[in-house]
């Protein structure tokens, strides 16, 4: 049975002290509201970074060439380091830790890609079949490049979804021929990519075919390799092993970062995760802080309430109020107020986060560092329960004080 009288007492007590009640509720509301907002924003930040990682394989090493910056064994600095298919073969045969590897070659010059009377400009990458794994390329029609394409210098290509749409619209792309720098390439596959939209504006050619038509003599512009489920330390070891192999072959100092640069995806991802662990920790620190501030606010105000109500409590005690009924009266008010204000904070916080998300989706807003703000409901519910417990606790201390009040002294005041 709902104790109607008790609730009436609570409401009348709150009504009698409107400002006090409002301020208490405000501090609790603010605590929960800020926690929800912070969690949502943090998650939005994290989502956007995780999204950018979806583009590429995380366990990857990206190997770039450059110019030597240090003299080495009597050789002067400033020499250009040129990767070739031999480097690709070397890593493939000498570094068993490497799971997938691909070279990249970019066709020389400026040119458009033609189909019938359409002439459009797209990026072209000439790669090995393993490139599919490295870039997380997802085939939606046909196939990606394969080993036979490489071995037989086939004139085939895989094109991005947007390339296909721009050239053929609704028509079937597979089997048609694109003219690239005067050579016809048969389309064997269409792909999409989870990463940036630009990844679907690419055309992939077999690296050997491109090198031959360009008379590139087996030159490569960069290489990429995946290294299985190696951890950070293991990835660094493999990175050094590759650096050593290439530095010996091309005769440059192993610590010459200008001659050879390796981007380690594992290390980078780990760094990001650490940054987010830190941000998350910070958010909780601030959030818990604001909740505690709210609870202290409630407790303080309840203490003042008791001071104010000393006489009333004294009279009630003289009339036969048991200690339990006094504790109940004070605590029920504290818990009710904290829960209600906390609940409203929860609703407004959620409302703001989801409103923001809705607006971003509706307006197709793509922010570099913000994406899909969301809040884990359970997390916040836990916070709310924590808050209510704190509310009870913050009511308990003043309640015990209320029970200790000497009715005689109280009524004289």
């Amino acid at each position, binding site marked *: 049975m709902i104790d*109607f*009288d008790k609730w009436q007492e609570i409401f*009348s007590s709150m009504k*009698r002290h409107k400002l006090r009640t409002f301020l208490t509720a405000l501090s609790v509301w603010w605590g929960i509201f800020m926690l929800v907002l912070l969690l949502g924003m943090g998650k939005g930040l994290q989502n956007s970074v995780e999204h950018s990682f979806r583009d590429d394989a995380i366990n990857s090493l990206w190997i770039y060439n450059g110019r030597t910056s240090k003299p080495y064994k009597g050789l002067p600095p400033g020499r250009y380091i040129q990767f070739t298919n031999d480097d690709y073969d070397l890593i493939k045969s000498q570094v068993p830790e490497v799971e997938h590897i691909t070279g990249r070659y970019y066709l020389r010059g400026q040119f458009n890609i033609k189909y019938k009377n359409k002439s459009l400009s797209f990026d072209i990458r000439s790669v090995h079949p393993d490139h599919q794994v490295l870039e997380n390329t997802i085939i939606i029609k046909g196939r990606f490049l394969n080993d036979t394409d490489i071995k037989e210098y086939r004139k085939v290509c895989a094109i991005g979804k947007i390339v296909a749409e721009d050239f053929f619209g609704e028509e079937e792309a597979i089997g048609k021929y694109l003219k690239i720098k005067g050579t016809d390439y048969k389309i064997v596959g269409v792909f999409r990519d989870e990463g940036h939209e630009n990844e679907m504006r690419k055309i992939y050619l077999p690296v050997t075919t491109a090198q031959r038509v360009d008379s590139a003599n087996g030159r490569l512009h960069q290489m990429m390799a995946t290294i299985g489920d190696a951890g950070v330390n293991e990835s660094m070891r493999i990175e050094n092993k590759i650096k050593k192999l290439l530095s010996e072959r091309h005769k440059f100092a192993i610590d010459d970062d200008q001659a050879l640069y390796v981007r380690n995806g594992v290390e980078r991802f780990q760094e990001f995760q650490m940054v987010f662990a830190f941000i998350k920790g910070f958010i909780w620190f601030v959030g818990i802080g604001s909740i505690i501030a709210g609870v202290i606010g409630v407790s303080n105000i309840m203490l003042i309430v008791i001071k104010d109500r000393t*006489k*009333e409590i*004294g*009279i*009630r*005690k*003289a*009339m*036969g*109020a*048991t*200690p*339990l*009924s006094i504790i109940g009266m004070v605590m029920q008010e504290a818990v009710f107020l904290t829960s209600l204000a906390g609940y409203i904070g929860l609703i407004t916080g959620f409302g703001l986060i989801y409103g923001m998300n809705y607006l971003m989706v509706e307006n197709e807003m793509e922010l570099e560092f913000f994406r899909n703000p969301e809040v884990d409901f359970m997390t916040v519910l836990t916070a709310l329960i924590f808050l209510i417990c704190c509310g009870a606790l913050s009511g308990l201390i003043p309640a015990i004080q209320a*029970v200790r009040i*000497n*009715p*005689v002294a109280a*009524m*004289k005041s």
Partner: protein
Amino acid sequence: MIELKNIQKSYQTGYTKLEVLKGIDLHIEKGEFVSIMGSSGSGKSTLLNILGILDEYDTGEYRLDGTFINKQLTQKQAAIYRNQFIGFVFQSFNLLNFKTALENVALPLYYQKIDRKQRQKVAMEYLDRVGLRDWADHLPNQLSGGQQQRVAIARSMVARPKIILADEPTGALDSKTSFEVMKLFKEVNDEGITVLVVTHENDISKMTKRIIRLNDGIIGENILLENASTGAS
């Protein structure tokens, strides 16, 4: 009804021990109308608080209607005894100023867990008996001092206590109103309820049937009045 044996009570103030009650022996029968007199500092308020189970005593023995009231009493039991045995009337009325006269009278019944309707019905009866039926919905600050004290008396009677303890009930009232209030106590007493009035005014105490004079923590005089006056003099 009330049996006190060698009740002693002292307060520790700083390094000095202040003995307020130095051994009180008192016997009050059911249905008596007693006034406790004494100058300030004589311990009369302390005695009343002990009788009302609002304060503890140090040594001695206190029986209320045969029930031994001692230190081992839990706060809850004390509250229940207060609620069932004792009605309080105070000098400063001590009404809850945010509640109406009717709600104030009904308060002791609330702590007896009597339901709302019944509470209001009973409270209205008692308010009627003190002549304030028409003032039931008024807040205390809309009532005169005498009316407030009558509300307080109605409140002290509503739970049908065995004794009513009144601490300087006329202290804040003019003499005409004081006599009206005392007349009301007389009527209450006529119903068989034991009434104890603490006062320092002689003409008030003369309206009771027995005067106990406290003197420096002990009982100095115990006078039985054969013909207690009941009206205004």
